[in-house]
């Protein structure tokens, strides 16, 4: 029976691996699901908002280590909140200065935000240097939990999962159970009619965009627990993130979750058999093939235009 338990352990670790990839993908995609899925704005600079969060956390960590070492175990929660605020504020500014003038031209928004992402990357490089930096995670996030002798689950992975669940639940509640969410969905469906019934659509747009960016910031803060941060850290994932949202069916939050899960599991499972790059090629190609057969994504009732 020895081989069976070993097999079980490998399967469990592999499953967990897939789950952490899932969390990473979902955390990144949540902000985009709001901005792209709900508003239809293509924000190519989404990855950079993630990086803003990561750098904010890094600054918090350095300041704590320097001025208040005793605060170290708790600074992380503070850093997450601050990341949300900073990324959200930048998003608010960007919407005001740029996005709001381009709502009628989605393809141009794509190009403009790509330019924005280049500018932001160079800003990060000028301020923080080209080398990757890493925030010091609090002590309680280090190490791993041993369930059995063979199964070890790293604590930061568990933390990521918890954060993903909390964030997803919060966004779900805001979008589908709050008055604000109702206004957002009304604006998305029919802007003119929403304005006619007294919704301030300009304000709704700005708040929605800022919220999406803030969520990206939180994701960035969470990423500092599993890796270091460089100026181009966020942009590497932008295509995968867009695919997750498109694959899930753009207007469906549930679709985003499901597609992040499917893509993550495919990726980590094929990585077990193939090299990393081939696994990625396989995953992305299958996503695109399925999108060619079913362009509206996994969960969508409307034909997209």
């Amino acid at each position: 029976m020895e081989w069976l338990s070993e097999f079980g352990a490998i399967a469990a670790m592999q499953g967990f691996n897939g789950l952490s990839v899932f969390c990473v993908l979902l955390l990144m995609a949540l902000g985009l699901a709001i901005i792209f899925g709900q508003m239809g704005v293509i924000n190519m600079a989404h990855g950079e908002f993630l990086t803003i969060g990561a750098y904010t956390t890094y600054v918090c960590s350095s300041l704590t280590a320097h001025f208040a070492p005793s605060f170290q175990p708790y600074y992380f929660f503070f850093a997450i909140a601050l990341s949300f605020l900073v990324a959200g504020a930048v998003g608010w500014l960007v919407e005001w200065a740029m996005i709001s003038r381009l709502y009628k031209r989605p393809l141009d928004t794509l190009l403009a935000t790509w330019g924005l992402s280049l500018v932001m990357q160079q800003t990060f490089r000028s301020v923080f240097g080209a080398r990757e930096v890493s925030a010091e995670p609090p002590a309680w996030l280090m190490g791993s939990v041993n369930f059995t002798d063979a199964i070890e689950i790293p604590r930061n992975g568990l933390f990521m999962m918890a954060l993903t669940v909390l964030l997803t639940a919060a966004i779900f509640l805001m979008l589908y159970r709050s008055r604000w969410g109702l206004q957002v969905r009304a604006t998305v469906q029919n802007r003119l009619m929403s304005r006619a019934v007294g919704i301030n659509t300009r304000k709704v747009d700005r708040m929605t965009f800022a919220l999406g960016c803030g969520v990206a910031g939180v994701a960035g803060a969470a990423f500092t627990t599993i890796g270091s941060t460089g100026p181009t850290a966020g942009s590497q994932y932008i295509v995968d993130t867009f695919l997750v949202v498109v694959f899930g069916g753009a207007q469906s939050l549930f679709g985003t979750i499901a597609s992040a899960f499917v893509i993550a599991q495919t990726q980590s499972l094929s990585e077990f058999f193939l090299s990393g790059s081939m696994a990625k090629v396989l995953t992305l190609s299958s996503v695109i093939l399925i999108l060619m057969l079913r362009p509206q994504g996994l969960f969508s009732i409307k034909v997209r235009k």
Partner: protein
Amino acid sequence: MKALDKLLGGQQNLIGIALLALLILVVFPLTLDAFRLNMVGKYLTYAFVAVGLVLCWGYGGILSLGQGVFFGVGGYCMAMFLKLEASDPESTKIQSTPGIPDFMDWNQITELPWLWQPFHSFSFTLVAVIAVPVLLAFIIGMALFKRRVGDVYFSIVTQAIALILTVLIVGQQGLTGGVNGITDLKTLLGWDLRTDSAKLLLYFINAGLLFGCIFIGRFILASKLGRLLMAMRDKEERVRFSGYDVASFKIFVFCVAAAFSAIGGAMFALQVGFMSPSFVGIVPSIEMVIFAAVGGRMSLLGAVYGALLVNYGKTYFSESFPELWLYLMGGLFIAVVMYFPNGLAGLWDSHGRQALARLLRRQPPVQAVAPVVKPKTESKILETQP
């Protein structure tokens, strides 16, 4: 005669083409040294992509963020042929398997892969340079346009395809040369490509092909298809309800753009002497869009100027102020989209023409004596010209 007039697009456009031809065929070869001229030749290979993008993005409304894929596939086809010629058994006899490209030998491959076999033939290569990218574009177009995938989704999917191809090329080192790409290309059918005279000839071939593509583009735009493209861009549903098969037109123009990019890629491999995945991926593909955008998304000639200008700026700034370049490039993306959606060509139409007319009017004293041609109406006529 009428067909020719249609092709050249009237007097205004004829002057535009003549000016560009003067610049590329006379001014550059006379004023630049061999190294700089080769560089301009390299920029002009990007102009092929930009001209294609004017057709499919500016007029057709299809923003492909994967033009680098076609540029790359065209370039790789050419590079594979040149590489095979460069790795004859004689010059590769120090390898453990002579007669195969060096990078294959480094990757412990002992036999030429089947994918490389047909590239021994030059005529096959010439066909493949255009046929393979067009086939790829046709498949992508069939799959996406026939199912009425919207503009934005098309852009994202093409971008993902660019990513896939890059990862694939980098990952399959033994087959493609990996990150370094296919390097050390020496001769074409025994003709040494590295000499200055060969580079000069290639420059002119390149320029000739570019003008060929511009004429094809002009012909398409002047035909009924050009009108349909614009109509589709502005009101797709209305064109569909008028009984046109919108998807087929989109596929056609996307394939044409792919063919142009592929020619550019093949000329790139010939002139620069290597091909690597850094011309395939997301970043180069989207930079190619900015060439077209800076030049003017509605102007075939503007695209050439855009490609020249942006690439010159890139070379200049990344040599002198590498810090500044990304800011400038980013700023360029934002400024072009927000303030000059029609690029240089648009600026020329709105300001340049009038300024030129004013300049011409003011200049010669002989004309001042003669009754001045009614300035008001003249500028109005100029404004309304396309």
